């Protein structure tokens, strides 16, 4: 365990009162690669996870393009299997799990807590390098024969497939440790490093969400680690643990895998919910409705999420009794999600809604996540899922939660905290155009997949019957619209870096702690003076006009 010992530093010691992006805060490439600053580490995570998103996106476009027409379109069936596997594995392990905690969490969490850094800055940097190390394994796997098992690595196929499974599995194994380290660090930071006056009932909901996520990361990821280790050993030494011929049980692999991976869907969505809660409060200009309920429902998801994994295995050969039990337990997880959705809606009600780009993403999140969550109940219902399992219905369900939920919230969060992270404003009208294409493109791609799936189109298939052609064509066109949307958004951000206007400390007029008392971009130690918290993060009624709209520290100095 890294305990920080501040040794005697030379003159390389960063200036704690310089803006964190300035050379005084860390010079040159070394100032980035060896930085212990949570904000710089957050930005490095942002860049890497966005690269992963891009890579995963390219594979997605290839998959959709192949499905544009029946039969062979651009690639052989072998390569198709690899393409969808890589899409899934990259998106899950390299993008969506580390994205919000690694990038936004690292950047925002300590500032929201009013502290100078996370509890273990070296561990934080280590987790980033562990992430890169794991990513290297994944990349190696891609160039050395790739993987065609699906991101779920189900045995017995994964133990017999002659593709490069071991390095991908080890990659995911290593990435898991990065995730564990981040979670551990956040748990300790939230417990031990809150500013004076910031008691638990004043924690921003982003912090609560990150806390719940960290708990899942810490509890579930080790089981994935051991599962993947067993799988790698099974392939290398022929252990037999999952091999029926040696007395093993392939379904046990699925139990182990989903013991991690169902909670992991909450590692993916809870941070998205956390971001969305912040966006709703800021852009409705009012106290969030049901603060306590939203905070506790995050913890509820974290705990109940461990009881339902068997709903992925209804048709696996799991016993009927287990199947029934898991189906009943699955209904439980809908409760906390429902609590959240109702409270967000109530927050919007009679709020002064400002339709900025981040808010548009937040509203998209609300709508799309609700669809995703409700269809989760459909597939959670045992009898219905026997029909829907392994069809495009499931594909649509999880894209509505993961992309419609988490990715929308992630992009919304980037656009929301962008002025804080970079100190620059961006072209809102361009970003809104981007949002429009993303929203329309997303629904074009995935709404139709619900229909296709309920009519029996299986997932992970290379070819299809003629009656599915129109659906597939529409879906593929949707993926192009999505591409346009993301390119426009990326362009808005690049333009902002190159020539964006300087941002004031609190451009959105938010009462959130991260916007108060910090500059844009913040100084190395975040606050010039350690803040004392005297109100909650959404107490708009307690804020003076200056706090929300002017009276920035900069002005005060002049």
């Amino acid at each position, binding site marked *: 365990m890294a305990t920080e010992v501040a040794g005697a530093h030379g003159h390389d010691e960063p200036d704690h009162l310089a803006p964190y992006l300035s050379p005084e805060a860390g010079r040159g490439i070394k100032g980035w690669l060896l930085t212990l600053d949570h904000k710089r580490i957050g930005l490095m995570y942002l860049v890497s996870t966005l690269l992963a998103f891009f890579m995963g996106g390219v594979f997605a476009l290839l998959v959709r393009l192949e499905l544009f027409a029946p039969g062979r379109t651009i690639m052989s069936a072998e390569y198709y299997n690899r393409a969808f596997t890589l899409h899934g594995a990259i998106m899950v392990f390299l993008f969506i799990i580390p994205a919000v905690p690694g990038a936004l969490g690292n950047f925002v969490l300590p500032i929201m807590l009013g502290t*100078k*850094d996370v509890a*273990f800055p070296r561990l934080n940097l280590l987790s980033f390098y562990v992430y890169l190390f794991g990513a290297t394994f994944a990349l190696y796997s891609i160039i050395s024969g790739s993987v065609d098992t699906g991101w779920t690595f189900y045995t017995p196929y994964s133990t017999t497939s002659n593709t490069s499974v071991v390095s991908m599995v080890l990659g995911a194994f290593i990435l898991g440790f990065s995730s564990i380290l981040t979670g551990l660090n956040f748990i300790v930071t939230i417990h031990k*490093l809150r500013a004076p006056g910031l008691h638990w009932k004043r924690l921003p909901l982003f912090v609560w969400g990150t806390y719940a996520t960290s708990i899942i990361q810490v*509890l579930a990821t080790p089981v994935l680690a051991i599962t993947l280790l067993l799988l790698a050993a099974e392939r290398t030494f022929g252990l037999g643990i999952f091999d029926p011929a*040696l007395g093993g049980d392939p379904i046990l692999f699925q139990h182990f895998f989903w013991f991690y991976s169902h909670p992991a869907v909450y590692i993916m969505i809870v941070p998205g919910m956390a971001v969305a809660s912040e966006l709703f409060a800021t852009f409705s200009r009012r106290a969030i409705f049901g603060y306590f309920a939203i905070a506790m429902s995050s913890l509820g998801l974290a705990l109940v999420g461990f009881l339902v994994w068997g709903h992925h295995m209804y048709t696996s050969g799991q016993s009927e009794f287990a199947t029934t039990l898991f189906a009943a337990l699955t209904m439980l997880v809908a409760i906390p999600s429902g609590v959240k959705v109702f409270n967000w809606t109530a927050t919007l009600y009679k709020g002064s809604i400002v339709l900025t780009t981040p808010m548009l993403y937040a509203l998209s999140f609300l709508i799309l996540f609700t669809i995703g969550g409700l269809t989760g109940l459909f597939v959670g219902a045992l009898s219905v899922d026997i029909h829907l399992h392994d069809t495009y219905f499931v594909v649509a369900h999880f894209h509505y939660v993961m992309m419609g939920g988490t990715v929308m919230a992630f992009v919304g969060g980037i656009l929301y905290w962008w002025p804080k992270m970079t100190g620059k404003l961006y072209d809102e009208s361009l970003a809104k155009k981007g949002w429009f294409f993303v929203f329309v493109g997303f629904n074009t791609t995935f709404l139709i997949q619900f229909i296709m799936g309920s009519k029996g189109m299986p997932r992970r298939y290379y070819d299809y019957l003629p009656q599915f052609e129109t659906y597939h064509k529409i879906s593929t066109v949707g993926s192009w619209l999505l591409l346009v949307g993301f390119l426009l958004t990326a362009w808005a951000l690049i333009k902002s870096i190159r020539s964006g206007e300087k941002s004031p400390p609190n451009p959105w007029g938010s009462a959130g702690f991260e916007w108060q008392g910090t500059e844009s971009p913040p100084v190395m130690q975040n606050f010039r003076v*350690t803040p004392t918290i005297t109100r909650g993060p959404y107490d708009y009624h307690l804020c003076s006009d200056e706090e929300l709209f002017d009276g920035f520290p900069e002005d005060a100095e002049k």
Partner: protein
Amino acid sequence: MASAHADSEHAEHAGHGDHPPYLAHHFDTPEQQFDSAKLGMWVFIVTEILMFGGLFVAYLIYKGQEPAIFIEAHNRLDWKMGSVNTIVLLFSSLTAALAVRSSQLGKKNETTMWLTITILCALAFLGIKYVEYSHKFHDGLLPGRFFTAHLPEHAHNGHVLPQRASMFFALYFMMTGLHGLHVVIGMSILGWVLVRNHRGQFSPEYFTPVEIGALYWHLVDLVWIYLFPLVYLVG
């Protein structure tokens, strides 16, 4: 957020204005730093328990499926060596706890002694494990496709094991192997603590690394406390 007071004021409320060399800049007080390190270690222990736990779950499930074969296979383990190793590890846990105690009291040389004994115990444990492993290798008691104890040339008192017994040894090697890896890691951590102790970096005010290293070592012991009876003894 409404009020803020100057850093110097805050520092004063926190300590006595002095900032000891071991205190990282983002902590206010040594206590806060110590508590953070400990909480971090406990969370880490949780992850380790769940990781080993996965193996234990697999072991218990497969044992429940083929009890007869598992009993036959586990008779080929050497429970005497296992017992000796248990005692060695328990003793090393005691010395680790004593190392923490003496560093809390500022007795540097005593700390060095206890840490050294702990590391020597770890080495002894690994030595015994090595002997055990080489017997298993010799008898073909290996996991999966390397398992040859079902062949007549490996007959033991005229008996051969069924081929299905390979599952037991797959789990045995995964569990003891992963545990052995943790012994090695724990040993290295304690070695590093030993070096720092030798350099005189610890005091009754700052002994966090000794405490954290010892916690890790106790974890290694905890895993073995379950592993030994379940794998070596229970029939």
